[in-house]
C-alpha cells in the first residue's frame, strides 16, 4: 500500500491529482487523504444547473468542480477529510469491500460508525460519509467524504435547499440526507490533523508515503488546467436538458426557456418588456451554458445581476 502526500486545498488541483495518481500508479494499492477549501463537487454526469444555485455560490465565493466518479453533489470544506482508495477490481469488487477498512479504522478510533444504504457511512441515522467510484481498465477508484468538523449549516444551505426545479433533465439526481460531524461523537476530542494521522496509519497498514516528482507535479498541473478548470469539463458535460422559468422582473412578467445539449443553448425564448428580450435571445442562441457570460449579459441588458436568477 502506498500513499502520495497531498497538502494542497485547491479543488481543481486535487481532482487532477487524484486522476493522475489513478492513471499512473496502476500496479499499486493506493490510499490518499486530502482536503478541499470550500467547494461544491458534482458527480461526473450531473446537471450542475439543477444541483446548485450558481448565483448563491458566486455570492459565497464557492467554486464548483466536476469529479470523475458517479453519484451526487457534495459540499467540501476544511472540516471535511476526503479519502481515496485504489485497487484492482478483484480486490475491491463492491462498496462493501471498499468501505470495510474505513469503517474498521473509524471503529478502532472508538467512533461508532456503520455502513448505511449502499455506500454511506453513518453514526446512528446520521450520515458522516458518502462515497462513489470509477472503474477503468480493471481498476477501481473509490473515494468518499468524512465529515469531521464541517460547517453543516452551510452544507445544508448549498446542497439541500437550493435545488433548481426549472430543469427537465437527464442525469444523476442527488440524495438529501441528515448529516452529523464525527468530532461530535469522539470519546476523546482530537483535531482534524490528529484524526487524519490516525486514519492514515490504519488505512496504510505499514505501507509507505511518497511524494510526486517535479515532473509528475507538472503533469498534475497540466491536467488541472486543461481538464478540471475547463468550461468543457465542468459545464459542457452537463447532460442535455430543457429549462423554463416564469416570474416577475422589474414589475413585469418574464419567461425564459431554452434547451441545452453538450452545454450549447438552442431554442432560446425570452419574453419580458423590461428590457430588450430580442437582444437577449440573439445573444444566447448557440451560446455556451456559461454563467459568467450570462451574468455579463444580464448586466449589459439591465444593469441588474439578479436577472440571472431567471436565466439559470
Amino acid at each position: 500500500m502506498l500513499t502520495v502526500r497531498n497538502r494542497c486545498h485547491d479543488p481543481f488541483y486535487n481532482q487532477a491529482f487524484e486522476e493522475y495518481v489513478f492513471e499512473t500508479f496502476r500496479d499499486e494499492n493506493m490510499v490518499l487523504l486530502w482536503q478541499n477549501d470550500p467547494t461544491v463537487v458534482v458527480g461526473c454526469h450531473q446537471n450542475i444547473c439543477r444541483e446548485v444555485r450558481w448565483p448563491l455560490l458566486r455570492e459565497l465565493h464557492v467554486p464548483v468542480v466536476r469529479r470523475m466518479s458517479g453519484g451526487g453533489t457534495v459540499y467540501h470544506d476544511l472540516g471535511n477529510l476526503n479519502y481515496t482508495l485504489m485497487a484492482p477490481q478483484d480486490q475491491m469488487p463492491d462498496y462493501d469491500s471498499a468501505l470495510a477498512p474505513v469503517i474498521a479504522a473509524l471503529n478502532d478510533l472508538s467512533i461508532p460508525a456503520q455502513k448505511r444504504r449502499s455506500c454511506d457511512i453513518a453514526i446512528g441515522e446520521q450520515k458522516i460519509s458518502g462515497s462513489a467510484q470509477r472503474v477503468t481498465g480493471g481498476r477501481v477508484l473509490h473515494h468518499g467524504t468524512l465529515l469531521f468538523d464541517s460547517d453543516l449549516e452551510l452544507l445544508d444551505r448549498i446542497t439541500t435547499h437550493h435545488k433548481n426545479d426549472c430543469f427537465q433533465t437527464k442525469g444523476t439526481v442527488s440524495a438529501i440526507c441528515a448529516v452529523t460531524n464525527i468530532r461530535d461523537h469522539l470519546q476523546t476530542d482530537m483535531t482534524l490533523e490528529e484524526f487524519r494521522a490516525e486514519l492514515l496509519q490504519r488505512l496504510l497498514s505499514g505501507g509507505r508515503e511518497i511524494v510526486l516528482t517535479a515532473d509528475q507535479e507538472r503533469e498534475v498541473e497540466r491536467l488541472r488546467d486543461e481538464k478540471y478548470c475547463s468550461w468543457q469539463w465542468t459545464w459542457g458535460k452537463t447532460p442535455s436538458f430543457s429549462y423554463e422559468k416564469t416570474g416577475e422582473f422589474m414589475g413585469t412578467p418574464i419567461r425564459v426557456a431554452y434547451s441545452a445539449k453538450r452545454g450549447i443553448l438552442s431554442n432560446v425564448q425570452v419574453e419580458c418588456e423590461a428590457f430588450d428580450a430580442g437582444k437577449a435571445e440573439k445573444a444566447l442562441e448557440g451560446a455556451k451554458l456559461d454563467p459568467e457570460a450570462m451574468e455579463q449579459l444580464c448586466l449589459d441588458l439591465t444593469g441588474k445581476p439578479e436577472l440571472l436568477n431567471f436565466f439559470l
Partner: protein
Amino acid sequence: MEKELTMPKLRPEMESGVLCAWLKEEGDVVSAGEPIYEIETDKVVNQIEATESGVLKKQLIEEGDTVPVSSPVAILETK
C-alpha cells in the same frame, strides 16, 4: 460482420445502467480494450471497453438513457 453490443451486467444485483457518455462517435475505429462508453449505476462510473476491434457503426442509445441489462446499445462492424 455486424455485432450487437449490449448493456453488461457488472454486479449480481444490477438490472439496468445509465449510458451517460459515448467515448466513441459513429464511424470511429475502435480497438479491442479501448473504452467505448461510460455507464453509471449506483454512483459507480464504469468505462466499458471493446472486446474486439472494429468500427462503431451505430449508437442505439442517447446519452442519459437508462438501459436494461442485456439490451443492445450499439452496433460494431467487425472484420
